[in-house]
């Protein structure tokens, strides 16, 4: 399954400058793990420890915050889009 992942600027140093990366997996977690396999270094930026996103990293599945879905266990399907966005903004 091909999932499109939008990578924010400060993480692109780990993706060879790519803003968009294709990954596979049946859940958000599997897709992000695949991203980490393709681009070593990015997993450390995303995860506090395995299975736990850093406090100030937000992940959106087709524009919906995954915390309002089933978090990392949310199922994804072909053509879905994930966006990684820094949480420190606004207010």
């Amino acid at each position, binding site marked *: 399954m091909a999932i499109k992942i939008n990578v924010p600027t*400060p993480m692109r140093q780990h993706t060879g400058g790519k803003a968009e990366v294709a990954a596979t997996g049946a859940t958000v977690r599997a897709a992000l793990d695949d991203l980490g396999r393709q681009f070593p270094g990015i997993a450390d*930026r995303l995860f506090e420890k395995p299975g736990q996103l850093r*406090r100030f990293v937000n992940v959106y599945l087709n524009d919906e*915050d995954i915390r309002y879905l089933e978090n990392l266990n949310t199922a994804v399907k072909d053509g879905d889009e994930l966006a990684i*966005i*820094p949480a*420190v*903004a*606004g*207010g």
Partner: protein
Amino acid sequence: MQAHFVRGLKCRLCGKEYPLKALNFCTEDFGPVEVFYDYDALKAEVSRQVFERRPDNMWRYRELLPLEGEPTVGLHVGGTPLVKADRLAEVLGVETLWIKNDAVNFPSLSFKDRVVAVALSKAREFGFTTVGCASTGNLANSVAANAAAAGLEAYIFIPADLERAKVLGTSVYGAKVIGVHGTYDEVNRLCSQVVDRFGWGFVNINLRPFYAEGSKTMGFEIAQQLGWRTPQHVVVPMAGGALIGKIHKAFQELAMVGLIETRRCAFHGAQATGCNPISDAVKTGREAHRPVKRPNTIAKSLAIGDPADGYFAAKVIRDTGGWAEDVSDAEIAEGMALLARTEGIFAETAGGVTLAVARKLIEQGRLPRDEEIVLCITGNGLKTQDAVVDCLEKPTLIGTALQEFEALLEKVTEAALV
């Protein structure tokens, strides 16, 4: 040109340092970055007298703000009254109560003028010509007004369902106003992507560390107006949760540079029940807040479901021995009316939240009746008139003859005697 003491940015999680630039998060762990200063050098430079002899606006504390040159935007912001609220104190049954009244801040009638003055002055230092923000309304007004005066192009993103007065009070300044069909948090996320794509200077996105420092001036003013000391309790409304932390930082900094003594000051946070992620975290003992997907409250200026500083706000409240509460829409409207009727201050819905929460905390015994309390009023009631329209009596209509008024007065007097 005068000396500056700002030294750089530092991640609040891992401590990694960055030079001064338009950056709001650490590229290592995405933690928020914060401005830091050379406090030793500051201590030798500043004094009560230095601050006191300057004009009564926020820039009197400029050594403790993150500009490297002179301020160029919002030169008249701040210097708002600290009102001794004796009539309100009597109703609430407390001895000493003060209102820090940012409802009359210049130019746009909210505390946001403080943060915008710093953010846009900094935007100019960095060379941005296009600025913007994600806003629940007050920030929109302030960015639009201050950007107009500074000749900067402004893109303002707001939730499409905002109060009419707040939309109008933005577009009148010629800003490009974009109403987004979504919650504030969705607007905010979109703005993060806009900044990433276009490289503009958004006051609460990539300029956020500088912006947030502006809030400290509300705390500096409170301490100076109390005669260079802190109160025992401060009650602060919470949306993104930055203000409460910055007032705390302001008191800490004044103590660090030797201008006040360190005294215990408890910080209390106020939210609306329809959007209470931070007060919920405090009340349930949770370290991280649970975001609120669909905020539902008349206090739209506080309707941030996923507050960026939620974690830090809850921590300040816990660490200082304060508490947080939330109140219903009816309590908010009552709070607005009570403040207006006792002190002649017409605050916006967030002010109603602050007052109603203070009342609740007094009843709970968390705000002891014999201790000194400061309530932070952050916005103006003229912008949120719809919130109180239903609980106000309509004007009595009469003709132009004096007898009509006499007859009316007689009726009113009779009614009062019954």
